[in-house]
C-alpha cells in the first residue's frame, strides 16, 4: 500500500530525512518512535503533501501512485488521512458542514454519489459514538474553543467518517489524559480492518498498550535504525533510546 524508498528530505537546505525506507501493507499497523527532532513529524508532513519540504531523493508509492507528485487534496481523496498533532482552528466554519464537504469531495473523486444532509447526519452520529464525543461539538466551528482532548477526538471522528485507506496519526497521544487516550485508541481499533493500514507516530510506548502495532520502527537522525515487533517498544520503554543510538553510530 505504501512503499517508501531511500527518502531524503530537507527543510531550507537542512537535511531532515536521510534515506528512509518503509513498507506498509493492508491490514498492518506500524508504529514509528524516536527521540525529538528525529524527523517523525517531517515524515508525516511530507507524506501528506505539506509545503516547505524539499524532496532531494527517493520515492514514495501509495497504491502504486507516485505519492510525492500528488496535490495534498488528491492524496486525501485517494484515501490518505493525517491526524494532526496540532489540529487547526477554522473560525466560523461549522464542523459538520466542513466534514460533509470533505466526505463528498472524497466520494466524488471515487465516483460515488454525494451524501445528502440526512444520510450524512446519520453517519456522523453513528461515528461519534466511537469517540464518545458530545453532540454540541458538531455545531461549533472547526476546532474553535475545543479543549486539547476534544480536538484530538475530533481528528479521530473525522477519520471515522472519511474512512481512509491509510491513516497517519501524528503524536495523537500527546496531551491526552489516560481516559481520552483510551477512547482515541478504541476508535482506531474499531476502524482497523484487512483493507486499511495505520502509521502511528508516537513519542511514548503508552499509546501502544492500546493500539497494538504489528511493527515498531525507531527513527533517529532521519533514518530507521531499528525495526521489530511490539516487544521493541517495550524494550525502548525500559531502556530508552540511548543504547540504540550508540549502536547506530558505531560502524559494525
Amino acid at each position: 500500500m505504501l512503499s517508501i524508498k531511500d527518502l531524503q528530505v530537507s527543510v531550507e537546505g537542512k537535511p531532515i530525512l536521510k534515506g528512509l525506507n518503509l513498507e506498509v501493507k493492508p491490514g498492518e499497523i506500524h508504529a514509528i518512535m524516536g527521540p525529538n527532532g528525529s524527523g517523525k513529524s517531517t515524515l508525516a508532513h511530507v507524506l501528506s503533501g505539506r509545503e516547505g519540504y524539499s524532496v532531494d531523493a527517493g520515492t514514495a508509492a501509495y497504491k502504486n501512485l507516485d505519492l510525492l507528485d500528488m496535490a495534498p487534496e488528491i492524496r486525501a481523496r485517494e484515501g490518505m488521512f493525517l491526524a494532526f498533532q496540532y489540529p487547526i482552528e477554522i473560525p466560523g466554519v461549522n464542523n459538520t458542514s466542513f466534514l460533509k464537504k470533505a466526505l463528498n469531495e472524497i466520494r466524488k473523486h471515487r465516483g460515488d454519489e454525494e451524501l445528502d444532509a440526512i444520510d450524512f447526519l446519520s453517519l456522523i452520529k453513528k461515528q461519534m459514538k466511537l469517540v464518545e464525543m458530545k453532540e454540541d461539538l458538531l455545531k461549533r466551528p472547526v476546532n474553535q474553543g475545543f479543549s486539547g482532548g476534544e480536538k484530538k477526538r475530533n481528528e479521530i471522528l473525522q477519520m471515522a467518517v472519511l474512512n481512509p485507506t491509510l491513516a497517519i496519526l501524528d503524536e495523537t497521544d500527546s496531551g491526552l489524559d489516560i481516559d481520552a487516550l483510551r477512547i482515541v485508541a478504541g476508535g482506531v481499533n474499531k476502524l482497523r480492518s484487512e483493507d486499511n493500514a495505520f502509521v502511528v507516530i508516537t513519542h511514548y510506548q503508552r499509546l501502544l498498550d492500546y493500539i497494538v502495532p504489528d511493527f515498531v520502527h525507531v527513527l533517529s537522525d532521519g533514518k530507521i535504525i531499528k525495526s521489530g515487533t511490539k516487544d521493541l517498544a517495550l524494550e525502548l520503554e525500559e531502556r530508552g533510546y540511548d543504547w540504540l543510538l550508540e549502536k547506530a553510530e558505531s560502524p559494525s
Partner: protein
Amino acid sequence: MNPVNDENSTMSDEQQTIQNITDQDYKYGFVTDIEMDEFPQGLNEDIVRMISAKKEEPEFMTNWRLKAYRQWRKLKEPKWPKLEYDEVEYDELYYYAAPKTKDAPKSLDEVDPELLETFDKLGVPLEERELLAGVAVDAVIDSVSVATTFKDKLGELGIIFCPISEAIKEHPELVKKYLGTVVPYTDNFYATLNSAVFSDGSFVYIPPGVRCPMELSSYFRINASKTGQFERTLIIADKGSYVSYLEGCTAPMRDENQLHAAVVELIALEDAEIKYSTVQNWYAGNKEGVGGIFNFVTKRGLCAGARSKISWTQVETGSAITWKYPSCVLKGDNSVGEFYSVALTNNYQQADTGTKMIHLGKNTRSLIISKGISAGKSNNAYRGLVKVNNKAENARNYSQCDSLLIGDQCGAHTYPYLEIENPTAQVEHEATTSKVSEDQIFYLNQRGISTEDAVGMIVSGYAREVFQQLPMEFAVEAQALMSVSLEGSVG
C-alpha cells in the same frame, strides 16, 4: 495601521494559488443590446429640466432638482477618502439613459425578452422569483423601472412599492414630505449631483401597523456605456410597520470607468423597523486595475420615532472604487441602529466604507460589525463614526472591525472616529487583523478540499456573522459571490 509587506519574497505555491483564484475573469461581463434613449453629453440647467420634463414631473420636483444642480456647481469632489483614481470628467458623462419602451409593461409578457434574458444570465429569472420565492421585484435596468411584480398583492395591504418616478406623479404628497429629509440636497458632492439628475429608483411606503409579508427586492444594473447611474431610493415605514428590502446588482464588462452615485433614504417612524440588505457586485475592473465602476453612494436612515429600528447589511464585492457609509440617525428615544458589513477587495480594487451612528435620542443603541477582506493588490479601509449628542442619555454602541488579509500585497486600514458629548454613553470598539494562514489551507487540503474551496470556506466562516443577517436565498447568493470574487486571488 498598514500591514502591506514590502519584502519582495518569492511567491509560495499557496500564494500562487491565491493569485490564480483571484485572477479569474468577471463572470457577469456582458452587454445587453437594448436601444438607448440618450440625452446629449454633459450637465447644465437645460439637461436637468429635460430630465424632469421627460419624466413628467410636477413643478416642485423640477425646482428641487434645479436647486440641487446650482448647489452642486459650488461643490468640489471630496479628497479625504483613502482612494486614488483619475478625476471624473463630469461634463463628458451622459446624465440620462433609459431602455426605449413606449409604455411601461403591465406584465412580464410585455417586458423586452432580451431584458429577461439578461436576468437569466445573472441567475435571477424574474418569473422564477415570482413563482417560487415570493419576492416582488422592481427591476431597474439603467435608470427606468421596466418590470414590477406583486404590486396588486401589496396594494391590498396599502403598501406602495413602485419606481420613484411613478411615486412622484401618483403620491406627490408622500414624496414632497419625505424626499431629502434624511439626505438633504446639500448633503455632499455626490448626493447633491444625484438630487439634480436622479433618473429612477424604488419607492416604498408601508402603512401604519403593516408587516410587509415578503422581501421587497430591486435589481440594479448599469447598462449603457458612459452613463452615470443615479438611483434614488426612498423607503418610509410608518408607525409600527416592518419591511425588509433587498438590493442586489451586477454589471456588464466595460473598459471605461462608470460613475455611480446613488442615494438611499430610509425613514422609520415610531415602533417601525426597516431592514435593508445589499449585495453589490459591479464590475471591478480587470486584473491590471483598468475599468470598473466608481461607486459613490450616500445611504442614510432616520430612526425618527421612539423604539424604531434600522438595520443595514451589506456585502460589497464589486466596483473599482467603493465610497459608501450607510448610516443611522437615532433620533427617537430607545431607537436602534445596526450595521453589518462584508467588504471584499481584490486585484486593484479600493474600498473606503463604514458607517455613521448618530445618537440623538435617549437610550439609543447601535451595533457595528464590519468585516474587511483584502486580496491581490487591493486596499480596504473601514471608516466609522460614532457620535453621541449631549442630550442622548444612556447611549450605547458596540463596534467590531475585523480585517482579513489574503496574500501579502494588499492593505487593510481602520479609521474609527468617536465624538462623545454625553458622559453617560457606553462605547466599545474592538478591532482585529488576521491572515488566511497556510496551516488552515493545508488542514482543509488534507481533508480533500481544494485550495480554492478552502479559501472560500475560510472567508465565508470569517464573514458568517454578517451573512447570518441576510435573508436565506440572499445569503447563499452572497457566499457564492465571495468565492467567485476571490477566484484567482490566492496570492
